């Protein structure tokens, strides 16, 4: 059993302190030694707290958020609809320290010009021990890394990773309760999360994407009030970090997704969805190259007599490589940084073969996205991306190609 040192309590204390009292209303830019120490001890699971925010004297509430906007020009098989300007999302977070051991944080996202307003996170945390904290409310399921660490200003790309948002369902939040904790030993950090929440619904195999599509569950009704299947979904994650090497996360999420009983009568066979994910991030010290990625595997039980349009296996991954190429003072920005970056996306939404023809099922996406980013401060990123993708339909016809230019920014405020 890992020994818990008193100093760990101190680090956790610093960490929470840094969040709630990170900055004054004057929004000072410099990171303190405390913040640096906190950063080294963070795991992906801490991302929800690892955000700049404003706090006010004598008011136990911290406010923050971020805004993303960009231009987009897409050319699909030589055809383009022209240039679009997008204000993708405005996210606001608010935190409160209710008492010594009770904290509250919420994240509300406005998308599509305010037509879509989503509570992505709204949870009450009760700290009993660094290795044992209770969390309840609307929680983000800890599957992969991106779901819990998705703030735009942290990424060098306008688009979110396909595997995270179109195969998994980032940002995926559900009503539920659970526990989490962290501990340290030398250079090692270990963290865990385990939640029971509402689960998916049968829209994941009945949707206008015509494919098994986990994000379709969001089109269901009363997501935060009613569990479609009536059975709790478990999601959990183990994370390991070595301060000199990087972080590795292993996560699982699963449970029944269909309403197999109504009024006590069996109306369908019970069907489960199981999701496994592995995520990693590291920085190659010699070159300061940052690498982050995530791979996921989905298994969905579908009736044998249903259509093969809705596959029962999916997998995919993404990997970002970010290379700072210039860091200096530019205007008044200390340590302004130019980066070159590349993202690789791959998703196979329907793994397997057609039994009718013994040929491979298609429904795959491959994309490569080179990009350039400029960070005047760590909180703001200006980015230019060029995404080239190949998308195959279910029967593996020649891939449709599309190229998309993006230019935009994402910034905490």
């Amino acid at each position, binding site marked *: 059993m890992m020994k818990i040192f008193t100093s760990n309590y101190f680090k956790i204390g610093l960490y929470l302190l840094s969040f709630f009292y990170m900055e004054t209303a004057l929004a000072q830019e410099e990171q303190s030694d405390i913040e640096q120490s906190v950063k080294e001890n963070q795991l992906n699971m801490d991302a929800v707290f690892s955000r700049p925010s404003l706090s006010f004297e004598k008011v136990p509430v911290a406010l923050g958020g971020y805004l993303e906007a960009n231009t987009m020009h897409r050319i699909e098989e030589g055809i383009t609809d022209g240039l679009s300007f997008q204000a993708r999302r405005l996210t606001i977070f608010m935190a409160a320290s209710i008492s010594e051991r009770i904290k509250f944080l919420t994240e509300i996202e406005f998308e599509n010009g305010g037509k879509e307003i989503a509570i992505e996170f709204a949870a009450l945390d009760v700290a009993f021990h660094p290795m044992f904290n209770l969390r309840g409310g609307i929680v983000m399921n800890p599957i992969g890394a991106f779901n819990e660490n998705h703030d735009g200003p942290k990424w060098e790309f306008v688009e979110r990773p396909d595997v995270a948002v179109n195969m998994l369902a980032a940002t995926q939040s559900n009503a539920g309760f659970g526990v989490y904790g962290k501990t340290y030993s030398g250079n090692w950090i270990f963290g865990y999360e385990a939640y029971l929440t509402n689960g998916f619904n049968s829209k994941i195999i009945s949707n206008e994407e015509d494919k098994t599509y986990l994000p379709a569950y969001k089109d269901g009704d009363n997501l935060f009030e009613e569990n479609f299947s009536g059975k709790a979904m478990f999601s959990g994650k183990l994370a390991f970090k070595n301060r000199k090497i990087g972080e590795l996360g292993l996560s699982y999420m699963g449970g029944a997704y269909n309403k197999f009983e109504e009024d006590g009568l069996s109306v369908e066979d019970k069907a489960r969805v199981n999701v496994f994910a592995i995520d990693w991030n590291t920085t190659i010290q010699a070159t300061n190259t940052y690498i982050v990625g995530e791979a996921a595997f989905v298994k969905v039980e579908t009736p044998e007599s249903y259509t093969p349009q809705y596959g029962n296996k999916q997998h995919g991954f993404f990997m970002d490589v970010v290379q700072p190429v*210039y860091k200096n003072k530019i205007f008044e920005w200390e340590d302004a940084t130019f980066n070159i970056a590349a993202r690789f996306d791959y998703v196979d939404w329907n793994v397997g073969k057609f039994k009718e*023809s013994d040929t491979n099922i298609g429904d795959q996406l491959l994309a490569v996205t080179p990009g350039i980013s400029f960070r005047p401060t760590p909180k703001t990123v200006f980015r230019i991306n060029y995404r080239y993708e190949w998308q195959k339909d279910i*029967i593996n016809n020649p891939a449709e190609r599309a190229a998309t230019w993006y230019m935009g920014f994402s910034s905490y405020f």
Partner: protein
Amino acid sequence: MKAKNLFVISLICIPILFSCEALAPQEPEEYELLDGPVENLNQAESIRFIEGDKAFNDQIFTKETGLGPIFTGTSCVSCHAGDGKGHPFVSFTRFGQDLPGIKNFLDQGAPQLQNRAIPGYEPETLPSGAPHAELLAPIVTGLGFLDAVSDEDLLAMADPDDLDGDGISGRVHWNDRPDYVKDRPGTISKNGKYITRFGKKANVYDLLHQTADAYNQDIGINSYYEPYDTYSGDKVQPEIDRKTINDVVFYLKTLKAPIPRNQDNPEVVAGKALFENTQCTACHKPTLRTSYSPITAISYQEFHPYTDMLLHDMGPELDDGYTEGYALSSEWRTAPLWGIGLSKDSQGGEYYLMHDGRARSIEDAILLHGGEAENAKNKYQNLSQQEKSQLIKFIESL
């Protein structure tokens, strides 16, 4: 910031940006694609084409929007990817009829097997001993031209008693038609029967008949035209509006005819001559002509489908023991050959030819011909290897 640094950054960034622009995917040539409208649609027709295109290619049906409960596919495009031929993963099993005009197994789901079901329901299974045939979806481009050929022209091509003695005795399919279809200009009827021309057995009168029937039998979508639920047999409320169905019909009517390729290639030119010499053109008529159509772009046009739209006895090899309407089980409508060279691009990179996809190459398809086509097949077999290759290259160019 030093100018030198900015210069270095620019050197890195600008070439990357502009080299990517040059890599943007180029639009395929029109002749490489099956989809797209006929030329010279007016603006109102173009708008309607787009509406139909969306319904045909983008509208996916789910349990919530009426799919099933028993079905074979979830959308039009699941059977006709890229407006081309279908793939075996969505095939149609027709069953119940082995003699002209006598329909059996109607109480057990005939004429089409809905072999899939939404969760909680059981799909149909083929009744023991039921005559049946597997069918793959046909290419849908150019259908408006085929629809606008007059009955008179079809009758002129028919030779049911082989009076010219060429061994080919194609006939029109005098058949029943649903009440909701309207006469096409110049419709000819005989003893209450009409000439039906679409479908593998030429069992379908027109594109409205085909479309309404496909929504109902393939996807389980009931409409004003076909209001009976395939699962319960009950007359139910429409799950799709009439406008959408008629937009799809308009889309099908105004899809362009496939554009032949490599017509100046010497091998193709030689193959074209061989195609004629081997008597293939006796059924696969190269040129037809439309009569009047309310769509000006289709009216009075010459086109090249390589079909006569007539029923022919294709011999025992292709006799599945199943039929539709008043056709014999050995009779099949001459399949249009236009677009066949592009069909791989809608069938996952492989050929699935003939009515059920059993032919995996054009040569396989030729060799499956029998009956009235026996002579043509024999002539093909007597060709040299080079001539066979030329003939196949010609067919692929269509």
